[in-house]
């Protein structure tokens, strides 16, 4: 077999490592995608759909040159969630996306990871503004958006997920 790989940069925060999604993350990823909480990310999804979603994470890097990382525990490498700059076809605008797997909730993991992702979008990718899209019912994500300094900026109707609240982050200039 060939050594086919995609080289994706790694980021580190105090507790976390943001690294490339790999097949070994599939069970954790599929469990999240099958959970009731996946209603906020267009799910719940069965295993086959979750596989396509994990592949979509990887493929997005190749297509756009950026994408979502697996948020892993720095010590154990356990997959805790995903975050990263995200802009697939049919999306409102480039966004910072995040999700946290069930067992990692309530520890500020998403906040720590999403801050690193936003800094990457601004400092490395050179974006000047960015949004996050959140389903109207997802109060935890809305709270995180506010904690990151986002303000509501209208609603976007996605073709399959439905209405998404647009949360606009402080600009790169405002955070500089």
């Amino acid at each position: 077999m060939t050594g086919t790989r995609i080289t994706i940069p790694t980021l580190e925060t105090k507790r976390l490592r943001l690294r490339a999604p790999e097949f070994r993350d599939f069970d954790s990823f599929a469990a999240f995608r099958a959970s009731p909480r996946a209603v906020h990310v267009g799910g719940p999804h069965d295993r086959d759909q979750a596989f396509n979603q994990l592949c979509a994470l990887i493929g997005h890097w190749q297509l756009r040159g950026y994408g979502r990382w697996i948020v892993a525990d720095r010590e154990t490498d356990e997959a805790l969630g995903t975050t990263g700059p995200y802009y697939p076809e049919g999306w409102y605008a480039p966004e910072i996306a995040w999700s946290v797997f069930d067992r990692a909730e309530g520890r500020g993991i998403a906040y720590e990871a999403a801050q690193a992702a936003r800094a990457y979008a601004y400092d490395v990718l050179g974006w000047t503004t960015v949004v996050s899209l959140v389903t109207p019912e997802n109060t935890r994500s809305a709270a995180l958006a506010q904690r990151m300094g986002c303000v509501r900026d209208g609603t976007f109707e996605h073709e399959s997920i439905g209405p998404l609240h647009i949360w606009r982050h402080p600009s790169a200039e405002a955070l500089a």
Partner: protein
Amino acid sequence: MSAPEIKLTGVPELETERLRMRAPIAKDWPAYRDLMTSERAKYLGGPHTPGRAYKEFSVEIAHWVIHGAGPWMLCLKGTDDAIGLVGPYHPEGWPEREIGWMIFEGGEGHGYAFEAAVASRHWAYTEGGWESAVSYIGQGNTRSIALAERLGAVLDEAATPLDPGDLVYRHPSAADLGLRGVV
């Protein structure tokens, strides 16, 4: 700090008589999108919205990363313009490993899919270590049925289709072709 180049590496390039087969890349997206959003995509699970097609294209690319095998973009030798996507494919939940094919608008009718499918199958049976392969074909897709038969595949009514009513064409095995996997 500038943005690092994100590159899929390690995808082997194959050459056939008329074709160069290379990794799928971002600039192939418009050709893929145009096919997958067109009426011709009815045999490819579509037609899809551009958003859904984008996800499908991501999966085609990621297949290489996850399985070390996947579909190649076909280009005419001496060019870099994608005319189709052909090769090994077996995402989660598929009953068996497939040699799949699609030819973009304007590339049909020249036997390119046949040429690429032969090379793909040979690669899968040697470098890829596969022992068998099928092709999943929608009912009524006479062009794909003709291609499968030209490849020596036969309808296997006992095999599990992807979707009820679809056809499963079974290729000659690696052993049938005198090829042995080099796993």
